[in-house]
């Protein structure tokens, strides 16, 4: 039985947001959402999380997922068939390559002649051997079969390389497709996808089962006694011919069937998320440059521990500056906003009682790291990341016209306090002048002064931490203004750094 993947193969540190928002890997959003077992279904869900989609598609996905959420038994059956799958990487890609290859037998007159001439020669040879000739004379009649096979060997080898050992995977794909074909749907998208499985004239599950059988017959080559079949009926060519005929009939349909299966699996994942979280809501995408969220929480934090906050802000030339003590939850809030936007723009429900947002492209800079192999320091890595974001904000062609919403955590942390302050101030001004919008978390409290001279385009927000009876008390609530609490000294003392009160007073 296969495990549900955590999507670690989709980790991409260069992506605008996926690495910073923990979209893939252990304890990731993908792991929470994904319920697909096929490589194509998982890749489709990953693609949805990595790329925001247009509003019409969001609505279609929402309707389909809402329908699938209600079909618990059906989606569990589908997933149980998927769990039986033991797909190895690259199988489907190799099969797709095979679709593009020219036929091995059809169109080659000598090979087509061999299909019936070789068995005839074999029967004649056996007859002559029994009744007339000694065996070594009859053996000469098998020579043409050997020559035909030799002549086609390279093509057959390539064919087998592309289709070999995929039959078991295809049988399970056929089970999944049959499950989809047998279910009437009411949502527009699910109806379209089900229709797509009948494009070849035969149900997709049936045609793929045939392909699985054909491929398994070519796998007979692995058998040590296959030479008997090769010299009697040119087995390789017979199977290649059947595969040629299958391909000629279904070449156009197979990619569509895989597309449909991938999308259904991704929709089942979203439907399951909806089913398991009835308190979450479907986001609404509107045309106004404004984001409004009520009770927005982090999807990966357990409901019992989760603290939700509201968010209302323009998404055109507007920045929220978030200050707070260490461990107050600033980074978590940035990820809360980011992951919910990603879910919303992928067509999934969000961890909020209400979310209204425009079409946007999220960009983040939160987890920049040095890279020894690139001779890059962590500061330089962050500068490169900021350049990446500035370019996206200033050049709409880089985001297909989508306004950028950025989430920046502790900008320019790798340099001295004076340069950091100067740089951060300039960056905020530049992003605002380019009509970018986003949230910037910082420890630099002096940046809070920018609100007063921003004509309302910068807002100060804070998450405070209290110290009661020598213990830190976190409430993770957003409050208007600049942070007034400091806990770093307390934390450092707890970790064994001896800081006297005199030193603090200095």
């Amino acid at each position: 039985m296969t495990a549900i993947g955590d999507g670690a193969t989709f980790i991409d540190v260069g992506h605008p947001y996926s690495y910073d928002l923990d979209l893939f890997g252990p304890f990731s959003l993908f792991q929470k959402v994904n319920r697909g077992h096929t490589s194509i279904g998982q890749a489709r869900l990953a693609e949805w999380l990595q790329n925001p989609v247009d509003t019409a598609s969001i609505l279609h996905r929402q309707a389909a997922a809402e329908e699938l959420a209600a079909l618990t038994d059906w989606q569990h059956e589908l997933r149980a068939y998927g769990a039986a799958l033991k797909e190895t990487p690259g199988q489907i890609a190799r099969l797709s390559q095979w679709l593009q290859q020219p036929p091995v037998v059809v169109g080659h007159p000598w090979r087509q002649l061999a299909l019936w001439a070789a068995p005839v020669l074999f029967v004649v040879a056996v007859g002559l051997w029994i009744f007339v000739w000694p065996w070594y004379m009859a053996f000469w009649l098998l020579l043409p079969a050997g020559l035909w096979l030799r002549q086609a060997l390279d093509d057959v080898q390539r064919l087998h390389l592309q289709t070999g050992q995929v039959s078991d995977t295809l049988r399970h794909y056929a089970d999944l497709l049959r499950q989809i074909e047998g279910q009437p749907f009411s949502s527009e998208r699910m109806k379209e996808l089900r229709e797509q499985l009948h494009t070849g004239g035969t149900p997709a599950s049936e045609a793929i089962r045939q392909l699985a059988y054909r491929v398994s017959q070519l796998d007979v080559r692995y058998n040590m006694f296959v030479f008997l079949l090769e010299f009697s009926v040119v087995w390789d060519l017979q199977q290649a011919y059947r595969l040629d005929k299958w391909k000629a009939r279904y070449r156009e349909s197979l990619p569509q069937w895989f597309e449909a299966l991938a999308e259904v699996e991704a929709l089942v994942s979203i439907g399951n998320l909806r089913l398991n979280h009835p308190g979450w809501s479907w986001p609404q995408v509107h045309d106004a440059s404004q984001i409004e969220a009520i009770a927005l929480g982090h999807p990966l934090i357990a409901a019992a521990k989760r603290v939700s906050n509201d968010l209302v802000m323009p998404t055109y030339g507007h920045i929220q500056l978030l200050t707070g003590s260490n461990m107050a939850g600033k980074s978590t809030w940035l990820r809360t906003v980011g992951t919910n936007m990603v879910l919303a723009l992928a067509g999934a429900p969000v961890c909020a009682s209400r979310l209204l947002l425009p079409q946007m492209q999220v960009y983040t800079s939160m987890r920049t790291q040095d890279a020894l192999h690139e001779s890059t320091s962590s500061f330089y890595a962050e500068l490169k990341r900021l350049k990446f974001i500035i370019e996206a904000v200033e050049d709409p062609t880089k985001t297909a016209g989508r306004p950028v919403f950025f989430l920046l955590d502790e900008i320019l942390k790798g340099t001295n306090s004076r340069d950091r302050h100067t740089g951060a101030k300039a960056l905020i001004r530049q992003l605002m002048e380019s009509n970018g919008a986003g949230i910037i978390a910082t420890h630099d409290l002096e940046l809070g002064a920018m609100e007063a001279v921003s004509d309302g385009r910068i807002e100060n927000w804070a998450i405070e931490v209290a110290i009661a009876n020598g213990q830190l008390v976190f409430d993770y609530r957003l409050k208007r203004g600049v942070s007034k609490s400091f806990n770093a000294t307390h934390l450092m003392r707890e970790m064994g750094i001896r800081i006297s009160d005199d030193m603090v007073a200095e």
Partner: protein
Amino acid sequence: MNTIPDYATRASQFEHESERKQRRYERLAWMRLLAFILLVAGVILAWREALWWGGLSVTVAGIAGFAALIRRHGRLQEQAQHLQRLQLLNEYEARSLAHNDDSHW
């Protein structure tokens, strides 16, 4: 609004059904062995005691019947495994809701 299924109860139902199928599968394994012995004995007897067409008929019918039994046996195993997978995925959902998303199956 949908309500969250009781995954733990569902898992236990599937576990029960899967075990029931598995027991049937194991019983049929013994029947299969018995059928094979009877088939061999029947074929030998038929060829020895009856005319050639009688022997041939028993052989063909016996092999066809035995093949059907094997197919049925295989189907039972598939059903038991399918039910077990349903049990595991419901257990996974139950753990997931308890916020142990790391628990793979």
